[in-house]
């Protein structure tokens, strides 16, 4: 992917104000649009995940550090926050609940200072493997030390403690959501600001060419280390918020699964763009909470989506968006609409065919107790009927055929548009 943009930090940029304003607005009104209790928790979790994924991307996207163990920092942040919460509940300490995520942040920071020192000595594969090792160690310890980690049951707490301000007790999920939203906004802004600081830029330089960095006066190890600490801080904040959100912290929060999810979804969202991880985080929550409820085959879908994304859009969703933004900036997006529409329609048809077959297979294997009939896309399918299978196959085949046709048409138009843009650019350059 060659179209990587750069973020010049130009203050007083109108576009920027609009984007940040819109971001704040989305955070503000989302729970009003989606108001069921599940969606409120999901929104809360998205806010938390956004901070975590952005923190992770400080390493991966901006610093070129592939970590397999970043959950250690968010997780330990969670544990210290919940312990603090319990101390406050027991009256051993005075601290408003709204500041507790900072405790998590400090914990993440402290552990990053400690463990990051050895981790960031190296880059590349050794870095990746050290994080893997440390992650496994912390995870194994978490089950062995029930005193701190609470064993299998974890540590529970009650966020309704101390005296609330103006009736804000953080008991109702919605109040907590707004706390998370505020943290999410502030952390996003801070992390974005970081990309425009000398250290942030040097981190990019270290990613691209650590050797040269040494010859322009910087110690690469130090650059990585400081970035790691900052990333640990933000990860810790997200952990702290998670502790308040769930009011229980168990060993899984430091586990490899969590770390792996950060990696996968940051990548899926797009590690090369600042906002990529935000998309990734939203998808992560949707995938884990909703997708697994919608279908038993969610892991299969997830795996396939990953493989396709890595193959066809290695820059993640963010890069797809930016490619279209570029086209739009030249005023040519309208021309692509029909092609997009065809592409989407045929893709849906193809997916419907494939998904119905997958769902039927899973139904046969898992839900036979409910009889051979299953509901899918509003239809009742008889999983034992030859006709159903035949139908699904036909839909799939037609879908594939049409999709291929639409894809070719689209590719052609897309190329044309790109060529025209190139042409325009060259003309502009020549002027």
């Amino acid at each position: 992917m060659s179209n990587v943009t750069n973020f010049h930090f130009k203050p007083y940029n109108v576009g920027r104000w609009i984007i940040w304003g819109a971001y704040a607005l989305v955070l503000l009104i989302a729970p009003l649009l989606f108001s069921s209790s599940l969606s409120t928790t999901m929104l809360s979790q998205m806010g938390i995940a956004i901070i975590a994924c952005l923190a992770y991307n400080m390493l991966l996207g901006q610093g070129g550090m592939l970590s397999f163990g970043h959950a250690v920092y968010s997780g330990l942040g969670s544990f210290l926050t919940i312990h603090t919460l319990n101390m406050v509940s027991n009256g051993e300490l005075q601290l408003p609940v709204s500041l507790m995520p900072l405790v998590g942040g400090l914990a993440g920071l402290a552990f990053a200072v400690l463990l990051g020192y050895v981790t960031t000595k190296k880059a590349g594969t050794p870095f990746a493997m050290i994080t893997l090792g440390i992650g496994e160690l912390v995870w194994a310890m978490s089950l062995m030390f029930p005193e701190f980690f609470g064993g299998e049951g974890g540590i529970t707490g009650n966020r309704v403690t101390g005296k609330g301000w103006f009736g804000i007790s953080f008991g109702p999920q919605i109040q907590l959501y707004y706390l998370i939203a505020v943290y999410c906004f502030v952390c996003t802004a801070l992390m974005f600001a970081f990309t425009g600081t000398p250290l942030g830029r040097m981190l990019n330089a270290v990613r691209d060419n650590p050797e040269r960095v040494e010859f322009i006066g910087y110690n690469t190890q130090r650059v990585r280390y400081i970035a790691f600490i900052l990333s640990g801080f933000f990860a810790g904040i997200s952990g702290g918020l998670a502790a308040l959100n769930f009011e229980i912290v168990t060993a899984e929060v430091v586990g490899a699964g969590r770390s792996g999810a950060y990696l996968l979804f940051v990548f899926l969202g797009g590690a090369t763009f600042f906002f990529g991880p935000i998309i990734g985080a939203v998808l992560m929550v949707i995938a884990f909470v909703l997708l697994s409820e919608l279908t038993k085959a969610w892991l299969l879908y997830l795996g396939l989506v990953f493989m396709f994304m890595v193959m066809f859009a290695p820059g993640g969703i963010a890069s797809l968006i930016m490619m279209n933004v570029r086209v739009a900036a030249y005023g040519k997006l309208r021309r692509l609409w029909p092609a997009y529409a065809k592409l989407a329609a045929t893709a849906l048809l193809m997916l419907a065919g494939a998904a119905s077959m997958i769902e039927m297979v899973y139904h046969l294997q898992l839900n036979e107790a409910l009889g051979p009939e299953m509901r899918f896309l509003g239809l009742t399918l008889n999983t034992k009927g030859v006709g159903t299978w035949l139908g699904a196959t036909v839909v799939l085949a037609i879908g594939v055929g049409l999709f291929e046709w639409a894809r070719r048409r689209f590719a052609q138009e897309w190329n044309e548009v790109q060529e025209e843009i190139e042409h325009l650019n060259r003309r502009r350059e020549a002027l």
Partner: protein
Amino acid sequence: MSFALELNNVRKAFGKTEIIRGANLKVAPGERVAIIGPNGAGKSTLFNLISGRFGISSGEILLKGKRIDGRTPYEINRQGLARSFQVSNLFHRLSVFENIRCAVLWSLGYRYSFWKFLGNLDDANERAEQVVEMIKLDRKRDVLAMNLTYAEQRALEIGITIAGGGDVILLDEPTAGMSKSETKRFIQLIREVTEGKTLLTVEHDMGVVFGLADKIAVLVYGEVIAFDKPEAVRANVRVQEAYLGSVLAEQQAAGA
């Protein structure tokens, strides 16, 4: 007076093979020195030793009178020594401007700060703009380094080297791979941007050597066998034997 750069009996061995065998060199401030020598004589290695990329086996290296051997590259750089590479060594996913700006940050004292915005660092931005203009890449200011042509990359390579404001500059084959016409333009560029600085450069093109250098050092098998004014070096029998003494070199030199 103290020399800008001083090498005393520097030795370097890789495994059993000794590549630099007691090199001595004293460069006065403001001098432009070209280092020539057969392939594999150790010219690039010498640059690597001076700039701290490799440690020396014995001897000492002084920069403006201070020992720098055993220091890390970034420490040496902070003392005012900058170098370029034989193969372009850029930050390929950053734009031309960002490449240069990265290179000026340390010297302006911004170090590892993450509480200031680059956009507000007027001195750094100004300096970076200046350098971009100097290396004549202002029209490519926002192009990613990896999308530049070869010659532009070489120019950027020089830009990064000089941007930090170091006053001792090492350039390793800056014109390699360029055609005659481009080479000419480039020599001019180097002259401009290194005005008033101490310059060491490695070159095989005698045109460049004679066009650029006040003094020439000849490195053969890890030893400096001659260090003198160009004419004197050209007349030196040992140098002719070891290195020059060919039609090609004569022609190139004549063309300069």
